[in-house]
């Protein structure tokens, strides 16, 4: 018996001294392997008398089980230590910067964003979106819109012209999005509710004018649309767009050849330095021109002005962007300076919607 206990203490002390898994394995082979010390003791069982076996059997089996358990435990301890050591060695400097992801670095231009904001609002009011070409003929850009040939009203538009064709007619770059009104009315039976966003051009350049800019036109034609409806639409739009609970709107009589009566619309605002707040203050900010579609325009589109009626309005998208988001200079919109685009641009997933709010 004392041999066995001596063997046990010797093996167990070897196990606890084993420095790595290989050493543990060597001990296992030395004790439990085919020629191991414990295996050798176990082999003696076969030649023992039943009496001897009765006492020796449990002792040697117990020894074998304890050693097996000790080996497994030591193995676990060593494996954990080895893993800890490996993980320690694998440490990285997590403060190192990562490459920016696309959704972080990308930007949507304010003109695109604001156009989508406007579309979201008018889609909710049941408007479709119509488009037309930038290179227009004189008829769509002026004549059909009731600009008499040679009238000073044409001169108010600093028009870009192309060279005259064989018939002496020269195409123009559209000076407003209003020709899309004409194209829409000629293509579709009323009722019509469309907005027409797009690029427009005038031969003019200063801090608030660029030779290219963006407008959105609105058009409603049916058998009853009147000025009161126009006022409502514009108020709803202004509230939704500027994201304020109330706007006070002022209509002033004005003149556009294609509307009669014609109005310009101001909204009440508060100007403090470069910041403008709507729905408060004592100042007025002009935001758009509008009016009832002129009888001549309806006639030019084959609509009977005694049956059909409606209204139209036009406003500058870039200007609306400036008013809402505070860009000071229109020219910067088209300079593609990445600093400006990163600063004033919108993140790729800033999707304007009425459920999520126009701006986030």
């Amino acid at each position, binding site marked *: 018996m004392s041999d066995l206990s001596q063997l046990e203490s010797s093996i167990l002390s070897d196990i606890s001294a084993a420095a790595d898994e290989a050493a543990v394995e060597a001990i296992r082979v030395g004790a439990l392997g085919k020629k191991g010390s414990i295996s050798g003791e176990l082999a003696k069982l076969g030649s023992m008398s039943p009496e001897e076996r009765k006492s020796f059997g449990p002792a040697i089996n117990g020894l074998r089980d304890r050693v097996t358990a000790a080996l497994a435990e030591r193995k676990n301890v060593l494996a954990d230590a080895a893993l800890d050591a490996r993980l320690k060695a694998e440490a990285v400097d997590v403060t190192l*910067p990562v490459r920016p992801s696309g*959704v972080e*670095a*990308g*930007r*949507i*231009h304010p003109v*695109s964003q604001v156009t989508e904001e406007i*579309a979201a609002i008018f*889609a909710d009011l*049941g*408007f479709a*979106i119509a*488009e*037309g*070409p*930038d*290179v227009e003929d004189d008829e769509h850009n002026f004549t059909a819109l009731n600009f008499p040939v*040679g009238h*000073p009203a044409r*001169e*108010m538009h600093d028009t*870009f012209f*192309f*060279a005259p064709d064989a018939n002496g007619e020269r195409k123009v*770059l559209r000076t407003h999005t209003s020709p899309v009104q004409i194209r829409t009315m000629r293509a579709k039976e009323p*009722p019509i*509710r469309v907005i027409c966003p797009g690029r427009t051009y005038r031969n003019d*350049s200063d801090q608030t004018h660029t*030779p*290219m800019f963006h407008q959105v036109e609105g058009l*409603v034609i049916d058998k009853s649309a*009147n*000025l*009161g*409806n126009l*006022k*409502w639409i514009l108020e709803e739009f202004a509230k939704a767009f500027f994201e304020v609970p109330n706007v006070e709107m*002022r*209509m*002033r*009589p*004005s*003149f556009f050849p294609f509307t*009669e*009566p*014609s*109005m310009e619309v101001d909204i009440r605002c508060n100007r403090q330095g470069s910041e403008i707040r709507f729905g408060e203050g004592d100042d007025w900010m002009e935001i758009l021109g509008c009016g*009832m579609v002129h*009888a001549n325009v309806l006639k030019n589109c084959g609509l009977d002005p005694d049956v059909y*009626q409606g209204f139209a309005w036009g406003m500058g998208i870039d200007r609306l962007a400036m008013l809402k988001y505070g860009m000071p200079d229109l020219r910067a919109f*088209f*300079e*593609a*300076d*990445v*600093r400006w685009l*990163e600063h004033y*641009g919108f993140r*790729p997933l800033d999707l304007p919607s009425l459920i999520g709010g126009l701006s986030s």
Partner: protein
Amino acid sequence: MKFSLSWLKEHLKTDASLAVVTDTLTKVGLEVEAVEDRAKQLAPFITAKVVEAAQHPNADKLRVLKIDQGDGTPVQVVCGAPNARAGMIGVFAREGTTIPANGLVLKAGEIRGQASQGMMVSEREMGLSDEHNGIIEMPDGTPIGQPFAPLMGLDDPVIEIAVTPNRPDCLGVSGVARDLAAAEIGDLVSPKPQPVKGTYPCPVTVTLDLDPDLAPAFALRLVRGVKNGPSPEWLQKKLRDVGLRPINALVDVTNFLTVDRARPLHVFDAAKVAGNLVVRRAKAGEQLFALDGKTYALDESMLVIADDKGVESLAGIMGGESTGCTDTTTDVLIESALWDALTIARTGRALGVHSDARHRFERGVDPDFTVPGLELATQLILDLCGGEPSEVVLAGEIPDGRRAIEFPISEVKRLTGLELHPAEIKLTLQRLGFSVSGQGDVLKVAAPSWRPDVHGKADLVEEVVRIVGLDKVMSTPLPKSENITRAVLTPLQKRARIGRRTLAARGLVEAVTWSFVSKAKAEAFGGGKPELALSNPIAADLSDMRPSLLPGLIAAAQKNADRGFPESALFELGQIFLGEGPTDQRIAAAVVRRGTPRHWSGAHAPDAFDAKADALALLASLGLPAERVQTVPGGPAWFHPGRSGTLQLGPQNVFGHFGELHPRVLKELGADGPVIAMEIVLDNLPEPKAKATKAKPALDASGLQPVSRDFAFLVERGVKAADLLKAVLQTDRKLITGADVFDIYEGKGVPEGHKSVAVAVTLQPREKTLTDTEIDAVSAKIVAAVAKATGATLRG
């Protein structure tokens, strides 16, 4: 259009305050652009007496003044004006006052050791004139301590309004007053012109030698024995207030009536006119040395007034210098004529002359006021210069421009929603000078002669609502439209929207660049057609409509690099122009990447494959997965021939290109390379197919594990990976569900001119697990197919 408040009040009897007047102007559509209220600006300047003027102890040219400003405690002021002397009354500004001429705020201080607590001002410092030889001297007996402006008649506010082109009647103060009277803030009291009886026939006759539409009427009269010279102060002040320079009484009268009544007139020095006057078209080669000191070359499209010597005046625009009135004029011919608006506009535009006369004639001058205007001018000239008037000669006849309009009262409600009493509608129109007759629902309305803009019912509605007030129009919800679920965007609009977000989500920054580029750039990118070149570009480098988004983006990227930001990843989504027709415009999306962002994990210079990835990501987001898109090597001339590709669904259906840009093209554009780019024309993508159901087909996912086998093929360098992969996939379309290149190798162990292409092939068993024999059989088929298609051998 500018006028002073006192001028307005000569036509409008009113007690309304300036604020009410300006608010009403804006309300009726005469938008107030500016109000110059000098009384307010000059309020801090008060009259003060110099009680003592002593020589400055330390400066020869300065004096130390004691100023009494009426409060009994004199203040000390150091002054350099030569006329500063004891006893004089001048104009004093305390410390803290802003000097109008230079915007400086006065501070108390010391001038060479003497305290100075304000300033005695000159006319120039007050912004009144250029006079700066001394300080302002007020007449003896002027009360002290009074605001200076009212004493000098400077308390008359000047109002500037924007007059829309449809309202020529409001280019005269009387017309403005009429609108205000209609809006019920006063009574219209414009003096009525009285005929002045001529005492002898006008010795000069007028012949209208042209189409009567061009010059319907021409009235003329002589006033002889006038004494010309500076006009009286009241007239000069009026003209100065509105920014006109007084010249002499005869000329000032015409300028006055131009502003007062929107009636341009012209005066000839009769002594300088040879023979009779003829109104005719100019002849090519004729010239006029005009009153603005410039010589104008005329042609047949222009109308002139000529005498026996030749052209003396450019009709409706400007008179000639040679017959102009001067201080020595004794006999004056006064002209009041009517001209065709369009002809005046064209002539003015062609010659680049902007005159007050042209401004009014091209918008429309009241025909009925032709002779009354002449009478008014005659009376004023008689009052100011004396003389003896001839009878009036009138060549041609005054056209009757009155248009009768049938006006159903219900139109007001129909167009505006505004419910007004018929009497109010009638009265409003009458106050504006419309004649209204008829009873009941439909009125007969005739527009006054000064309203060429009124033609139809809607015009009358506008007249009524602008006077009654647009604020009375009630905001009324527009009824909900039907079909709420229909798509608002067209497929192309949807694609533009999604495309934009997809590209931005790849880290690209959206730019919006000009629709026009230089001719050279347009030509370099396949454009430059003459029909897309602007006749009047705003700048030489913005002359041609862009055929591609790339030149604009490349320039933008280069500009950013020049600013110190060499790495850019830009995109644009917008219109390009293939022709001038309405269907020749396309929507394209383009990407430009340049510069290598450095990073500790390794720098990656953008290459053709980044451009391809941008393109394929865009296409996939628009419903065109990469496996459907064919990539063909090579692209248009602006791409690197060996590092570019064309994306298509067959040769007839090309929608875009990607790759590295051609170094020669970049050089032409002044851009540093390498720059990679892609451009896709969204219109060219196939329309999504309309499907019978929105439901997707059931998912076909096998329960058996897929098997992957790798092959290394040795092929000639020119063999396209796409062909190799296609051969693999076509070997067994059911079993082979994927093939991807995972390595390309050239170099040691691979023969010269060859490459090794390593392909991972995925086999997806359907019914039972594949045996090794089956896998070997498929592998052999794959190797054979690839060998047949590309000449590949399996790398040992």
